[in-house]
């Protein structure tokens, strides 16, 4: 016969183990039954974001199935980062790049940049930043339409010198009380355009292989 203390220890451990098993089972069942819906919701959210910078009529392929991985210092990448290739009737239409501006006022600003095949910007959105609320956060579309001032711009429009904020004799507005944030965003977009200019042939070549695969 076990002494009193060992018996209560045994009993308590069994109770704990039983509850651990039951709670794990409950979580596992929930996870199983929601898994496909969560993947669907994630994809829908991604498509919504991509659709904001690339008008639906400008491409007809499934962007999320034409993803390539880039690790490009010019775009501020520190690891493999996805880029999306868009085609219209089989022809290259646009590319959506993720770029990081490392020199924001408080940390890195992550951008999604859509560039049409002819080198014009279809749109830019900030996907993540830690800039000061009320000052630097006007790079968000929800706070200010500033980010739309990139629409339709390209490497030659404005020319090299214009790719800066007005304080630096460029073409883009800065915000009252916040110059560093828009300066970082303008520089990052400019670099992305330069990258596209040098590498677009190579990017769209990967498109063909990506398309053949499925």
């Amino acid at each position, binding site marked *: 016969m076990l002494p009193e203390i060992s018996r*209560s220890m045994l*009993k*308590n451990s069994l*109770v*704990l183990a039983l*509850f*651990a098993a039951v*709670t*794990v089972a*409950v*979580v596992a069942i*929930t*996870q199983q039954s*929601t898994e496909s*819906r*969560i993947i669907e*919701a*994630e994809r*829908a*959210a991604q498509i919504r974001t991509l659709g904001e910078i690339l008008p639906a009529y400008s491409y007809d392929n499934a962007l999320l199935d034409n993803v390539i991985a880039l690790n490009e210092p010019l775009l501020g990448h520190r690891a493999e980062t996805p880029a999306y290739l868009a085609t219209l009737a089989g022809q290259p239409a646009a590319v959506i790049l993720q770029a990081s501006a490392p020199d924001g006022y408080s940390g890195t600003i992550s951008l999604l940049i859509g560039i049409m095949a002819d080198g014009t910007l279809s749109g830019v959105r900030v996907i993540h930043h830690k800039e000061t*609320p*009320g000052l630097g956060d006007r790079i968000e579309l929800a706070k200010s339409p500033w980010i739309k001032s990139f629409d339709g711009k390209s490497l030659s429009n404005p020319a090299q010198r214009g790719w800066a904020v007005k304080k630096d004799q460029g073409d883009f507005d800065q915000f009252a009380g916040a110059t560093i944030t828009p300066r970082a965003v303008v520089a990052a977009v400019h670099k992305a355009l330069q990258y596209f200019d040098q590498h677009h042939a190579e990017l769209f070549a990967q498109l063909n292989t990506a398309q053949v695969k499925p």
Partner: protein
Amino acid sequence: MSTSFREITINGLWKNNPGLVQLLGLCPLLGTSNSTVNALGLGIATALVLICSNAAVSLIRNTVTNAVRLPVFVMIIAALTTCIELLMQAFTYELFQILGIFIPLITTNCIILGRAEAFAAKNSMLSASYDGLMMGIGFGLVLVAIGATRELLGTGMLFTNMHLLFGSIAEHWQIVVFENYKGFLLAILPPGAFLVLGLLIALKNWIDQLYAERIANTVTVSAPVVSRRVRVTGVVE
């Protein structure tokens, strides 16, 4: 030991309100109350976990020994929170992304373990679930009150982005209360949460005080009668 439903209701919504009186779960209360939709989302999630955990804890209250009581409660609460987190991810994905870390943090919300320990472990399943519902609503109401106040003061609008929670029907629920409002940043920033919560607590205490004074007044009116009777009985004795 059982408490009447009326008493549970009054306790959860007013007398023992988790947000205004017990001051439990302040971290999510202050962190997510910068807009009505965030506040409502977290309020509903917390209330759901609270109801389910109270029900579950009450069900097992006689089978679990005292020694392992707390670890078992924590396991139940963590499992329920994870389930709610997965469900929110599946059905309200964008809101889930905004609320972020505050959803898993429901596990550590003191209200939930507090109610499990103080109420659910000693009461029937029905009153425990009802207590969870009332405490949840009490917490949610405070959250939404702070959220709406901060949104209104900060942006001049109400019910922005409600479609994150209610789908496309809520697309146009946004109300612009003040046209051409410049915005009052302090209300949206974390200090605004403390200020609004402080004002709400003050308001509640003020109402309680007014109520107490009114009762005291009615007592004073009848006081002479009472005291005379007391004296009379004294004489008789």
